[in-house]
Protein backbone atom coordinates (compact mmCIF):
# COMPACT_ATOMS: atom_id res chain seq x y z
CA UNK A 1 0.00 0.00 0.00
CA UNK A 2 1.45 3.37 -1.01
CA UNK A 3 1.19 5.87 1.84
CA UNK A 4 2.16 9.48 2.36
CA UNK A 5 4.80 10.02 5.01
CA UNK A 6 4.40 13.75 4.64
CA UNK A 7 2.71 16.12 2.21
CA UNK A 8 3.04 19.87 1.89
CA UNK A 9 2.02 22.50 -0.62
CA UNK A 10 4.61 23.98 -2.97
CA UNK A 11 4.08 27.53 -4.22
CA UNK A 12 2.56 26.80 -7.61
CA UNK A 13 0.19 23.90 -8.18
CA UNK A 14 2.41 21.09 -6.92
CA UNK A 15 2.38 18.97 -3.80
CA UNK A 16 5.62 18.00 -2.08
CA UNK A 17 5.24 14.38 -1.08
CA UNK A 18 7.31 11.69 0.55
CA UNK A 19 5.84 8.25 0.01
CA UNK A 20 6.49 4.77 1.24
CA UNK A 21 5.39 1.33 0.19
CA UNK A 22 3.93 -0.30 3.28
CA UNK A 23 3.84 -4.08 2.86
CA UNK A 24 2.60 -6.12 5.77
CA UNK A 25 1.64 -9.75 6.25
CA UNK A 26 1.09 -11.69 9.45
CA UNK A 27 2.55 -10.71 12.77
CA UNK A 28 6.18 -9.83 13.24
CA UNK A 29 8.90 -7.25 13.20
CA UNK A 30 9.18 -4.17 11.00
CA UNK A 31 12.13 -3.36 8.77
CA UNK A 32 12.42 -0.09 6.88
CA UNK A 33 14.51 0.38 3.75
CA UNK A 34 15.23 4.07 3.21
CA UNK A 35 17.27 5.88 0.59
CA UNK A 36 17.45 9.03 -1.49
CA UNK A 37 18.41 11.45 1.30
CA UNK A 38 21.02 12.77 -1.10
CA UNK A 39 19.57 13.34 -4.54
CA UNK A 40 22.76 12.35 -6.38
CA UNK A 41 22.96 8.88 -4.82
CA UNK A 42 21.03 6.37 -6.88
CA UNK A 43 22.19 2.85 -5.96
CA UNK A 44 19.43 2.63 -3.36
CA UNK A 45 16.84 3.08 -6.12
CA UNK A 46 17.65 -0.35 -7.52
CA UNK A 47 17.87 -1.97 -4.09
CA UNK A 48 14.42 -0.60 -3.23
CA UNK A 49 13.11 -1.95 -6.53
CA UNK A 50 14.55 -5.41 -5.87
CA UNK A 51 13.21 -5.55 -2.30
CA UNK A 52 9.78 -4.23 -3.32
CA UNK A 53 9.62 -6.81 -6.11
CA UNK A 54 10.77 -9.67 -3.88
CA UNK A 55 8.38 -8.87 -1.06
CA UNK A 56 5.28 -7.96 -3.07
CA UNK A 57 5.60 -11.06 -5.29
CA UNK A 58 6.17 -13.43 -2.36
CA UNK A 59 4.01 -11.99 0.38
CA UNK A 60 3.41 -15.44 1.90
CA UNK A 61 7.07 -15.50 2.97
CA UNK A 62 6.60 -12.32 5.00
CA UNK A 63 5.84 -12.29 8.73
CA UNK A 64 5.78 -8.67 9.71
CA UNK A 65 6.21 -5.42 7.86
CA UNK A 66 8.53 -4.09 5.18
CA UNK A 67 8.35 -0.33 4.62
CA UNK A 68 10.19 1.01 1.57
CA UNK A 69 11.05 4.71 1.35
CA UNK A 70 12.84 5.21 -1.96
CA UNK A 71 13.10 9.01 -1.90
CA UNK A 72 13.59 11.00 1.29
CA UNK A 73 14.64 13.96 -0.89
CA UNK A 74 12.29 13.65 -3.88
CA UNK A 75 13.03 17.14 -5.21
CA UNK A 76 16.75 16.39 -5.18
CA UNK A 77 16.43 13.07 -7.01
CA UNK A 78 14.11 14.49 -9.64
CA UNK A 79 16.40 17.44 -10.35
CA UNK A 80 19.84 15.82 -9.93
CA UNK A 81 20.81 17.77 -6.84
CA UNK A 82 22.42 16.36 -3.73
CA UNK A 83 20.82 18.75 -1.27
CA UNK A 84 17.26 19.93 -1.01
CA UNK A 85 16.57 22.30 -3.91
CA UNK A 86 15.27 25.75 -2.95
CA UNK A 87 16.69 25.32 0.54
CA UNK A 88 20.34 24.55 -0.20
CA UNK A 89 20.40 22.21 2.78
CA UNK A 90 21.88 18.78 3.34
CA UNK A 91 18.85 16.70 4.30
CA UNK A 92 21.05 14.55 6.53
CA UNK A 93 22.00 17.44 8.83
CA UNK A 94 18.58 18.42 10.12
CA UNK A 95 17.30 15.34 11.95
CA UNK A 96 15.29 14.74 14.09
CA UNK A 97 13.62 17.83 12.64
CA UNK A 98 10.91 19.91 14.23
CA UNK A 99 7.17 19.55 13.84
CA UNK A 100 6.65 23.29 14.24
CA UNK A 101 9.77 24.25 12.31
CA UNK A 102 10.15 25.37 8.75
CA UNK A 103 9.03 23.21 5.85
CA UNK A 104 12.17 21.12 5.65
CA UNK A 105 12.44 20.68 9.43
CA UNK A 106 8.85 19.47 9.49
CA UNK A 107 9.60 17.04 6.69
CA UNK A 108 12.57 15.69 8.66
CA UNK A 109 10.39 15.35 11.72
CA UNK A 110 7.71 13.43 9.82
CA UNK A 111 10.31 11.04 8.37
CA UNK A 112 11.92 10.50 11.76
CA UNK A 113 8.56 9.91 13.45
CA UNK A 114 7.46 7.48 10.77
CA UNK A 115 10.64 5.39 11.12
CA UNK A 116 10.80 5.51 14.92
CA UNK A 117 9.98 2.26 16.60
CA UNK A 118 10.98 0.05 13.67
CA UNK A 119 13.01 -3.05 14.54
CA UNK A 120 15.59 -2.16 11.90
CA UNK A 121 16.20 0.71 9.49
CA UNK A 122 18.63 0.35 6.59
CA UNK A 123 19.66 3.77 5.27
CA UNK A 124 21.26 3.27 1.85
CA UNK A 125 23.71 5.87 0.58
CA UNK A 126 25.85 5.82 -2.55
CA UNK A 127 28.81 8.03 -1.73
CA UNK A 128 28.63 11.06 -4.03
CA UNK A 129 29.76 11.80 -7.56
CA UNK A 130 33.34 12.29 -6.35
CA UNK A 131 34.22 9.04 -4.62
CA UNK A 132 33.80 5.37 -5.43
CA UNK A 133 33.21 3.26 -2.34
CA UNK A 134 33.52 -0.44 -1.67
CA UNK A 135 30.17 -1.67 -0.31
CA UNK A 136 30.33 -0.89 3.38
CA UNK A 137 28.36 -0.26 6.52
CA UNK A 138 29.40 2.72 8.63
CA UNK A 139 28.81 2.57 12.33
CA UNK A 140 29.62 5.12 14.97
CA UNK A 141 31.70 3.54 17.75
CA UNK A 142 29.07 4.27 20.39
CA UNK A 143 26.55 2.04 18.62
CA UNK A 144 29.02 -0.63 17.47
CA UNK A 145 28.19 -3.26 20.12
CA UNK A 146 24.53 -3.28 19.05
CA UNK A 147 24.95 -2.79 15.33
CA UNK A 148 28.02 -4.79 14.25
CA UNK A 149 26.21 -8.16 14.61
CA UNK A 150 23.39 -6.89 12.35
CA UNK A 151 25.90 -5.46 9.89
CA UNK A 152 27.55 -8.87 9.65
CA UNK A 153 24.20 -10.39 8.68
CA UNK A 154 24.21 -8.09 5.64
CA UNK A 155 27.38 -9.83 4.50
CA UNK A 156 28.67 -6.52 3.21
CA UNK A 157 32.35 -6.33 2.15
CA UNK A 158 33.51 -3.84 4.74
CA UNK A 159 32.32 -2.59 8.14
CA UNK A 160 33.82 0.72 9.22
CA UNK A 161 33.40 1.60 12.86
CA UNK A 162 34.33 5.28 13.07
CA UNK A 163 34.70 7.78 15.87
CA UNK A 164 31.64 9.72 16.93
CA UNK A 165 31.49 13.37 15.86
CA UNK A 166 29.11 15.90 17.34
CA UNK A 167 28.23 17.28 13.93
CA UNK A 168 27.00 13.85 12.82
CA UNK A 169 24.44 13.88 15.60
CA UNK A 170 22.07 15.57 13.15
CA UNK A 171 21.99 12.60 10.79
CA UNK A 172 18.97 10.37 10.40
CA UNK A 173 20.95 7.34 11.60
CA UNK A 174 22.20 9.02 14.75
CA UNK A 175 18.77 10.44 15.56
CA UNK A 176 17.24 6.98 15.27
CA UNK A 177 20.02 5.05 17.02
CA UNK A 178 20.10 7.45 19.95
CA UNK A 179 16.39 7.04 20.54
CA UNK A 180 16.22 3.26 20.40
CA UNK A 181 15.56 2.53 16.73
CA UNK A 182 18.52 0.60 15.26
CA UNK A 183 19.69 2.05 11.96
CA UNK A 184 22.47 0.77 9.71
CA UNK A 185 24.03 3.10 7.17
CA UNK A 186 25.16 1.41 3.96
CA UNK A 187 27.51 3.26 1.60
CA UNK A 188 28.43 1.90 -1.78
CA UNK A 189 29.72 2.60 -5.25
CA UNK A 190 29.50 6.11 -6.65
CA UNK A 191 26.87 8.81 -7.06
CA UNK A 192 24.86 9.18 -10.22
CA UNK A 193 25.15 5.53 -11.30
CA UNK A 194 23.64 2.12 -10.58
CA UNK A 195 25.74 -1.00 -10.23
CA UNK A 196 23.43 -3.99 -10.62
CA UNK A 197 25.77 -6.52 -9.06
CA UNK A 198 26.45 -4.45 -5.93
CA UNK A 199 22.74 -3.73 -5.52
CA UNK A 200 21.88 -7.42 -5.92
CA UNK A 201 24.49 -8.28 -3.28
CA UNK A 202 23.10 -5.78 -0.79
CA UNK A 203 19.59 -7.05 -1.52
CA UNK A 204 20.72 -10.61 -0.73
CA UNK A 205 22.24 -9.27 2.48
CA UNK A 206 19.01 -7.51 3.45
CA UNK A 207 17.10 -10.73 2.73
CA UNK A 208 19.53 -12.56 5.03
CA UNK A 209 19.03 -9.98 7.77
CA UNK A 210 15.24 -10.26 7.37
CA UNK A 211 15.53 -14.04 7.58
CA UNK A 212 17.53 -13.86 10.82
CA UNK A 213 15.09 -11.32 12.26
CA UNK A 214 12.20 -13.68 11.50
CA UNK A 215 10.59 -11.31 9.00
CA UNK A 216 11.30 -13.45 5.89
CA UNK A 217 10.95 -17.20 5.82
CA UNK A 218 13.56 -17.91 3.19
CA UNK A 219 17.32 -17.45 3.50
CA UNK A 220 19.28 -16.37 0.45
CA UNK A 221 20.89 -19.15 -1.57
CA UNK A 222 24.00 -20.72 -0.11
CA UNK A 223 27.14 -18.70 -0.79
CA UNK A 224 25.37 -15.45 -1.63
CA UNK A 225 26.11 -13.81 1.70
CA UNK A 226 29.80 -13.48 2.46
CA UNK A 227 31.95 -12.36 5.36
CA UNK A 228 32.82 -8.78 6.17
CA UNK A 229 36.14 -7.15 6.89
CA UNK A 230 35.71 -5.29 10.18
CA UNK A 231 37.66 -2.09 10.77
CA UNK A 232 37.10 -1.01 14.36
CA UNK A 233 40.35 0.71 15.27
CA UNK A 234 40.12 4.48 15.30
CA UNK A 235 43.48 5.24 13.66
CA UNK A 236 43.39 2.37 11.20
CA UNK A 237 42.20 4.40 8.22
CA UNK A 238 44.65 6.47 6.16
CA UNK A 239 43.23 9.35 4.14
CA UNK A 240 44.80 10.36 0.85
CA UNK A 241 44.25 14.04 0.06
CA UNK A 242 45.37 15.92 -3.01
CA UNK A 243 48.58 17.90 -2.46
CA UNK A 244 47.91 20.14 -5.46
CA UNK A 245 44.98 21.24 -7.60
CA UNK A 246 44.68 19.67 -11.04
CA UNK A 247 43.25 16.65 -12.84
CA UNK A 248 43.42 13.31 -11.04
CA UNK A 249 43.79 10.16 -13.09
CA UNK A 250 44.01 6.57 -11.96
CA UNK A 251 43.85 3.07 -13.37
CA UNK A 252 43.26 1.46 -10.01
CA UNK A 253 39.92 0.13 -8.78
CA UNK A 254 38.91 0.13 -5.18
CA UNK A 255 38.57 -3.00 -3.10
CA UNK A 256 42.17 -4.07 -3.74
CA UNK A 257 45.21 -4.43 -1.49
CA UNK A 258 47.88 -1.81 -1.97
CA UNK A 259 51.45 -1.66 -0.69
CA UNK A 260 53.28 1.23 0.91
CA UNK A 261 54.78 3.44 -1.80
CA UNK A 262 52.57 2.03 -4.55
CA UNK A 263 51.38 4.53 -7.15
CA UNK A 264 47.64 5.08 -6.70
CA UNK A 265 47.23 7.80 -9.31
CA UNK A 266 48.59 11.08 -10.58
CA UNK A 267 47.51 14.69 -10.58
CA UNK A 268 48.38 16.06 -13.99
CA UNK A 269 48.44 19.37 -15.82
CA UNK A 270 46.79 19.11 -19.25
CA UNK A 271 48.22 22.53 -20.09
CA UNK A 272 51.89 21.63 -19.66
CA UNK A 273 51.85 17.86 -20.03
CA UNK A 274 53.52 17.54 -16.66
CA UNK A 275 52.72 15.38 -13.67
CA UNK A 276 52.03 17.71 -10.74
CA UNK A 277 51.86 15.04 -8.06
CA UNK A 278 52.35 11.29 -7.78
CA UNK A 279 49.82 9.93 -5.34
CA UNK A 280 51.47 7.13 -3.38
CA UNK A 281 50.00 4.81 -0.79
CA UNK A 282 51.31 5.73 2.68
CA UNK A 283 50.84 2.17 3.99
CA UNK A 284 49.93 -1.41 3.22
CA UNK A 285 46.23 -2.06 3.32
CA UNK A 286 42.83 -2.22 1.67
CA UNK A 287 41.99 0.64 -0.67
CA UNK A 288 38.27 0.91 0.03
CA UNK A 289 37.65 4.41 -1.38
CA UNK A 290 39.01 5.87 -4.63
CA UNK A 291 38.29 9.20 -6.26
CA UNK A 292 35.97 8.98 -9.27
CA UNK A 293 35.68 12.64 -10.27
CA UNK A 294 38.91 13.88 -11.85
CA UNK A 295 38.87 17.61 -11.04
CA UNK A 296 40.59 18.14 -7.69
CA UNK A 297 41.63 21.01 -5.47
CA UNK A 298 44.27 20.89 -2.80
CA UNK A 299 42.76 18.76 -0.08
CA UNK A 300 40.27 16.87 -2.23
CA UNK A 301 39.93 13.30 -0.98
CA UNK A 302 41.55 10.82 -3.38
CA UNK A 303 41.28 7.60 -1.43
CA UNK A 304 41.01 5.85 1.90
CA UNK A 305 43.04 2.85 2.97
CA UNK A 306 42.30 0.48 5.81
CA UNK A 307 45.73 -0.27 7.23
CA UNK A 308 45.80 -4.00 7.74
CA UNK A 309 48.65 -6.27 6.73
CA UNK A 310 46.68 -9.43 7.34
CA UNK A 311 44.03 -9.06 4.63
CA UNK A 312 44.50 -11.44 1.75
CA UNK A 313 43.63 -10.25 -1.71
CA UNK A 314 40.67 -12.18 -3.05
Amino acid sequence: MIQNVTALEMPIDEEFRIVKNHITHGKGKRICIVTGTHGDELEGQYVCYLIAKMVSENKHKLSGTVDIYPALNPLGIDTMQRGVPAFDLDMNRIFPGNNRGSMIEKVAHDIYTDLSGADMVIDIHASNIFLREMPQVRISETTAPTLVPYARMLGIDFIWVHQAATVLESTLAHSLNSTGTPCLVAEMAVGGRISHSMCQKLTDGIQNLMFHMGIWSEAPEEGKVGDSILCDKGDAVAFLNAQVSGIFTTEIHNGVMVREGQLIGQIISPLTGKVLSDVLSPCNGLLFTIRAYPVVYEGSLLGRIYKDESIQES
Partner: protein
Amino acid sequence: MKVQTIFRMSSPYRDDFRIKAYTFGNGKKTLCLVGTMRGDEIQQQYVASRLVALLRSAEEAGMLTDKMSISIIPSVNPSSINIEKRFWALDGTDINRMFPGYDQGETTQRIAAGVFEFIKDYQFGIQLASYYLPGNFLPHVHMFRTGFEDIDNACLFGLPYVTVATPKPFDTVLLNYNWQIWDTQAFSLYAGTTDVIDHEMANITLKSISRFMLQKGIISRPLNVDDCSDIGQEDDAMPTVIDMADMIDLQAPHAGLLITKVSVGQSIRKGDTLAQIMHPYEGRETCRIVAPEDGIVFFARNKSITFQNTLLFRLIKCS
Protein backbone atom coordinates in the same frame (compact mmCIF):
# COMPACT_ATOMS: atom_id res chain seq x y z
CA MET B 1 47.44 49.40 7.11
CA LYS B 2 49.10 46.14 6.26
CA VAL B 3 47.64 43.79 3.65
CA GLN B 4 48.66 40.17 3.63
CA THR B 5 47.51 36.98 1.95
CA ILE B 6 46.81 34.56 4.79
CA PHE B 7 45.74 31.61 2.64
CA ARG B 8 46.45 30.74 -0.95
CA MET B 9 45.47 27.75 -3.01
CA SER B 10 45.77 27.01 -6.68
CA SER B 11 42.76 26.02 -8.77
CA PRO B 12 42.87 23.69 -11.77
CA TYR B 13 42.08 26.55 -14.17
CA ARG B 14 40.82 29.55 -12.23
CA ASP B 15 43.04 32.19 -10.71
CA ASP B 16 44.54 31.32 -7.34
CA PHE B 17 42.17 31.36 -4.42
CA ARG B 18 43.40 34.01 -1.99
CA ILE B 19 42.22 35.12 1.43
CA LYS B 20 43.48 38.54 2.44
CA ALA B 21 43.73 40.20 5.81
CA TYR B 22 43.93 43.93 6.46
CA THR B 23 45.66 44.75 9.71
CA PHE B 24 45.66 48.07 11.51
CA GLY B 25 47.77 49.09 14.47
CA ASN B 26 50.50 47.03 16.14
CA GLY B 27 50.62 44.81 19.14
CA LYS B 28 48.24 42.56 21.01
CA LYS B 29 45.71 40.82 18.77
CA THR B 30 42.64 42.63 20.00
CA LEU B 31 39.86 42.49 17.43
CA CYS B 32 39.31 40.43 14.32
CA LEU B 33 36.38 40.73 11.93
CA VAL B 34 35.48 38.09 9.37
CA GLY B 35 33.36 39.32 6.48
CA THR B 36 31.84 36.96 3.93
CA MET B 37 31.91 33.20 3.98
CA ARG B 38 29.05 32.39 1.64
CA GLY B 39 28.58 33.51 -1.91
CA ASP B 40 25.39 35.51 -1.37
CA GLU B 41 26.68 37.74 1.44
CA ILE B 42 26.89 40.98 -0.52
CA GLN B 43 25.78 43.22 2.34
CA GLN B 44 28.47 41.64 4.50
CA GLN B 45 31.07 42.34 1.79
CA TYR B 46 29.93 45.96 1.71
CA VAL B 47 30.13 46.35 5.49
CA ALA B 48 33.57 44.71 5.70
CA SER B 49 34.97 46.84 2.89
CA ARG B 50 33.66 50.05 4.43
CA LEU B 51 35.12 49.07 7.77
CA VAL B 52 38.53 48.70 6.09
CA ALA B 53 38.17 52.23 4.71
CA LEU B 54 37.06 53.63 8.07
CA LEU B 55 39.90 51.97 9.95
CA ARG B 56 42.42 53.18 7.40
CA SER B 57 41.26 56.76 8.01
CA ALA B 58 41.22 56.17 11.75
CA GLU B 59 44.77 54.86 11.68
CA GLU B 60 45.92 57.84 9.65
CA ALA B 61 44.17 60.16 12.10
CA GLY B 62 45.96 58.52 15.04
CA MET B 63 42.72 57.19 16.54
CA LEU B 64 43.96 53.64 17.17
CA THR B 65 45.10 52.74 20.66
CA ASP B 66 48.79 51.80 20.99
CA LYS B 67 49.82 48.19 21.32
CA MET B 68 46.60 46.83 19.92
CA SER B 69 45.98 45.38 16.48
CA ILE B 70 42.81 44.95 14.50
CA SER B 71 42.44 42.63 11.53
CA ILE B 72 39.71 42.53 8.94
CA ILE B 73 39.28 39.58 6.61
CA PRO B 74 36.83 40.96 4.06
CA SER B 75 36.13 37.55 2.52
CA VAL B 76 36.97 33.96 3.26
CA ASN B 77 35.27 32.84 0.07
CA PRO B 78 35.76 35.14 -2.94
CA SER B 79 35.67 32.03 -5.14
CA SER B 80 31.96 31.41 -4.50
CA ILE B 81 30.87 35.05 -4.64
CA ASN B 82 32.47 35.42 -8.06
CA ILE B 83 30.34 32.66 -9.55
CA GLU B 84 27.23 33.44 -7.51
CA LYS B 85 27.16 30.14 -5.67
CA ARG B 86 26.37 30.16 -1.99
CA PHE B 87 28.73 27.31 -1.05
CA TRP B 88 32.08 25.96 -2.23
CA ALA B 89 31.11 25.23 -5.77
CA LEU B 90 32.95 21.99 -6.50
CA ASP B 91 31.57 19.98 -3.61
CA GLY B 92 28.78 22.12 -2.16
CA THR B 93 30.35 22.35 1.30
CA ASP B 94 29.92 25.38 3.54
CA ILE B 95 33.17 26.85 4.88
CA ASN B 96 31.24 28.15 7.89
CA ARG B 97 30.45 24.51 8.78
CA MET B 98 34.09 23.42 8.74
CA PHE B 99 35.55 25.07 11.83
CA PRO B 100 38.02 24.74 13.50
CA GLY B 101 39.18 23.17 10.24
CA TYR B 102 41.81 20.55 9.51
CA ASP B 103 44.93 21.39 7.52
CA GLN B 104 45.34 17.82 6.27
CA GLY B 105 41.67 17.38 5.43
CA GLU B 106 39.40 18.26 2.53
CA THR B 107 39.58 21.55 0.65
CA THR B 108 37.11 23.57 2.72
CA GLN B 109 38.49 22.08 5.95
CA ARG B 110 41.91 23.35 4.88
CA ILE B 111 40.52 26.79 4.10
CA ALA B 112 38.83 26.92 7.51
CA ALA B 113 42.04 25.75 9.20
CA GLY B 114 44.09 28.37 7.39
CA VAL B 115 41.70 31.12 8.43
CA PHE B 116 41.31 29.86 11.98
CA GLU B 117 45.06 29.69 12.50
CA PHE B 118 45.20 33.42 11.72
CA ILE B 119 42.16 34.53 13.71
CA LYS B 120 42.16 32.30 16.75
CA ASP B 121 44.31 34.35 19.11
CA TYR B 122 42.31 37.56 19.01
CA GLN B 123 40.56 38.73 22.15
CA PHE B 124 37.37 39.72 20.33
CA GLY B 125 35.95 38.18 17.17
CA ILE B 126 33.15 39.51 15.01
CA GLN B 127 31.59 37.57 12.18
CA LEU B 128 29.27 39.28 9.72
CA ALA B 129 26.82 36.42 9.57
CA SER B 130 23.86 35.50 7.42
CA TYR B 131 20.92 33.19 7.97
CA TYR B 132 20.04 30.09 5.97
CA LEU B 133 16.56 31.36 5.19
CA PRO B 134 16.17 34.28 2.79
CA GLY B 135 15.02 37.34 4.66
CA ASN B 136 15.86 40.56 6.43
CA PHE B 137 16.76 40.97 10.08
CA LEU B 138 16.75 43.78 12.51
CA PRO B 139 20.50 44.33 12.97
CA HIS B 140 21.49 42.42 16.08
CA VAL B 141 24.27 40.57 17.86
CA HIS B 142 23.91 36.83 18.15
CA MET B 143 25.82 34.35 20.26
CA PHE B 144 25.69 30.71 21.25
CA ARG B 145 25.32 29.51 24.78
CA THR B 146 28.64 27.71 25.16
CA GLY B 147 29.42 28.65 28.74
CA PHE B 148 31.97 31.14 27.36
CA GLU B 149 29.52 33.63 25.87
CA ASP B 150 29.91 37.18 27.07
CA ILE B 151 26.56 38.93 27.00
CA ASP B 152 27.76 42.08 28.79
CA ASN B 153 30.27 42.72 26.04
CA ALA B 154 27.66 41.91 23.37
CA CYS B 155 25.56 44.72 24.80
CA LEU B 156 28.37 47.20 24.13
CA PHE B 157 27.56 47.16 20.41
CA GLY B 158 24.54 49.20 21.44
CA LEU B 159 22.21 47.44 19.04
CA PRO B 160 18.68 47.15 20.40
CA TYR B 161 18.81 43.35 20.59
CA VAL B 162 21.23 40.65 21.62
CA THR B 163 20.05 37.13 20.86
CA VAL B 164 21.28 33.91 22.38
CA ALA B 165 20.60 30.35 21.31
CA THR B 166 21.47 26.90 22.55
CA PRO B 167 23.73 25.28 19.95
CA LYS B 168 22.45 22.26 18.04
CA PRO B 169 24.89 19.50 17.07
CA PHE B 170 25.19 21.00 13.61
CA ASP B 171 26.19 24.37 15.10
CA THR B 172 29.34 23.03 16.75
CA VAL B 173 31.29 23.40 13.50
CA LEU B 174 30.44 27.09 13.01
CA LEU B 175 33.10 29.79 13.34
CA ASN B 176 31.28 31.63 16.13
CA TYR B 177 31.04 28.48 18.26
CA ASN B 178 34.68 27.50 17.77
CA TRP B 179 35.97 31.00 18.34
CA GLN B 180 34.28 30.91 21.73
CA ILE B 181 35.63 27.47 22.55
CA TRP B 182 39.15 28.73 21.69
CA ASP B 183 38.82 31.67 24.11
CA THR B 184 37.94 34.46 21.73
CA GLN B 185 34.88 36.45 22.73
CA ALA B 186 32.88 35.92 19.58
CA PHE B 187 29.88 37.80 18.25
CA SER B 188 27.86 37.22 15.12
CA LEU B 189 26.61 40.48 13.73
CA TYR B 190 23.60 40.43 11.43
CA ALA B 191 23.71 43.42 9.14
CA GLY B 192 20.05 43.39 8.13
CA THR B 193 20.15 42.04 4.60
CA THR B 194 22.21 39.43 2.77
CA ASP B 195 22.20 39.48 -1.03
CA VAL B 196 21.47 43.16 -1.56
CA ILE B 197 23.21 46.22 -0.15
CA ASP B 198 21.15 48.23 2.28
CA HIS B 199 23.11 51.38 2.99
CA GLU B 200 21.22 52.37 6.11
CA MET B 201 21.46 48.92 7.71
CA ALA B 202 25.15 48.85 6.84
CA ASN B 203 25.62 52.19 8.61
CA ILE B 204 23.81 50.91 11.69
CA THR B 205 26.09 47.87 11.71
CA LEU B 206 29.25 49.96 11.25
CA LYS B 207 28.21 52.35 14.00
CA SER B 208 27.68 49.41 16.32
CA ILE B 209 31.18 48.10 15.59
CA SER B 210 32.55 51.59 16.17
CA ARG B 211 30.68 51.81 19.48
CA PHE B 212 32.05 48.46 20.60
CA MET B 213 35.61 49.43 19.72
CA LEU B 214 35.24 52.74 21.51
CA GLN B 215 33.79 51.09 24.63
CA LYS B 216 36.65 48.60 24.66
CA GLY B 217 39.25 51.34 24.27
CA ILE B 218 40.45 50.11 20.88
CA ILE B 219 39.79 53.48 19.24
CA SER B 220 39.81 56.89 20.84
CA ARG B 221 36.98 58.49 18.84
CA PRO B 222 34.01 57.05 16.96
CA LEU B 223 34.63 55.96 13.37
CA ASN B 224 33.35 58.42 10.81
CA VAL B 225 30.28 56.50 9.61
CA ASP B 226 27.79 58.54 7.54
CA ASP B 227 24.66 59.97 9.06
CA CYS B 228 21.99 57.42 9.44
CA SER B 229 18.72 56.87 11.20
CA ASP B 230 19.14 56.33 14.87
CA ILE B 231 18.11 52.79 15.66
CA GLY B 232 19.63 52.17 19.06
CA GLN B 233 22.08 54.99 18.84
CA GLU B 234 21.86 56.19 22.43
CA ASP B 235 25.00 54.91 24.05
CA ASP B 236 23.34 54.44 27.40
CA ALA B 237 20.28 52.53 26.10
CA MET B 238 20.42 49.00 27.44
CA PRO B 239 19.86 46.34 24.75
CA THR B 240 17.30 43.65 25.28
CA VAL B 241 18.73 40.15 25.53
CA ILE B 242 16.43 37.57 23.99
CA ASP B 243 16.61 33.84 23.68
CA MET B 244 15.73 32.87 20.11
CA ALA B 245 13.42 30.25 21.57
CA ASP B 246 11.29 33.00 23.12
CA MET B 247 10.48 34.67 19.84
CA ILE B 248 7.23 34.05 18.01
CA ASP B 249 7.71 32.20 14.72
CA LEU B 250 4.99 32.63 12.11
CA GLN B 251 4.90 30.10 9.31
CA ALA B 252 2.95 29.94 6.08
CA PRO B 253 -0.28 27.98 6.54
CA HIS B 254 -0.40 27.61 2.75
CA ALA B 255 1.99 27.90 -0.16
CA GLY B 256 1.64 30.62 -2.77
CA LEU B 257 2.65 34.17 -3.62
CA LEU B 258 3.69 36.16 -0.60
CA ILE B 259 2.69 39.81 -0.30
CA THR B 260 4.41 41.24 2.75
CA LYS B 261 2.82 44.26 4.44
CA VAL B 262 5.41 45.06 7.12
CA SER B 263 9.15 45.49 7.33
CA VAL B 264 11.73 44.63 9.97
CA GLY B 265 11.87 46.90 12.96
CA GLN B 266 8.21 47.80 12.64
CA SER B 267 6.03 47.70 15.76
CA ILE B 268 2.85 45.73 15.25
CA ARG B 269 -0.38 45.31 17.19
CA LYS B 270 -2.26 42.11 17.80
CA GLY B 271 -4.54 41.53 14.81
CA ASP B 272 -2.45 43.50 12.31
CA THR B 273 -2.05 41.91 8.89
CA LEU B 274 1.61 41.08 8.30
CA ALA B 275 1.24 39.38 4.93
CA GLN B 276 -1.21 37.92 2.47
CA ILE B 277 -0.70 34.67 0.66
CA MET B 278 -2.26 34.72 -2.79
CA HIS B 279 -3.35 31.83 -4.97
CA PRO B 280 -0.76 31.75 -7.79
CA TYR B 281 -3.33 31.12 -10.55
CA GLU B 282 -6.58 32.60 -9.30
CA GLY B 283 -5.37 35.81 -7.72
CA ARG B 284 -7.45 35.41 -4.59
CA GLU B 285 -6.18 35.56 -1.05
CA THR B 286 -5.74 32.05 0.36
CA CYS B 287 -4.80 33.21 3.81
CA ARG B 288 -3.59 36.13 5.82
CA ILE B 289 -0.74 36.21 8.33
CA VAL B 290 -1.98 38.09 11.38
CA ALA B 291 0.01 39.19 14.42
CA PRO B 292 -0.96 36.94 17.36
CA GLU B 293 0.07 39.64 19.84
CA ASP B 294 1.78 43.01 20.08
CA GLY B 295 5.42 42.95 19.05
CA ILE B 296 8.23 44.02 16.77
CA VAL B 297 9.16 42.41 13.46
CA PHE B 298 12.61 40.92 13.97
CA PHE B 299 12.88 38.78 10.82
CA ALA B 300 10.86 38.90 7.63
CA ARG B 301 11.14 36.63 4.60
CA ASN B 302 12.12 38.64 1.53
CA LYS B 303 11.22 36.15 -1.19
CA SER B 304 7.86 36.56 -2.81
CA ILE B 305 6.94 32.90 -2.95
CA THR B 306 6.53 30.53 -0.08
CA PHE B 307 6.17 26.83 0.58
CA GLN B 308 3.68 25.64 3.13
CA ASN B 309 5.25 25.86 6.62
CA THR B 310 8.07 28.17 5.53
CA LEU B 311 9.11 30.61 8.24
CA LEU B 312 7.79 34.04 7.24
CA PHE B 313 8.25 36.18 10.32
CA ARG B 314 9.98 36.08 13.65
CA LEU B 315 8.54 38.50 16.18
CA ILE B 316 9.76 39.90 19.45
CA LYS B 317 6.98 39.98 22.01
CA CYS B 318 6.32 43.40 23.45
CA SER B 319 5.42 42.39 26.99
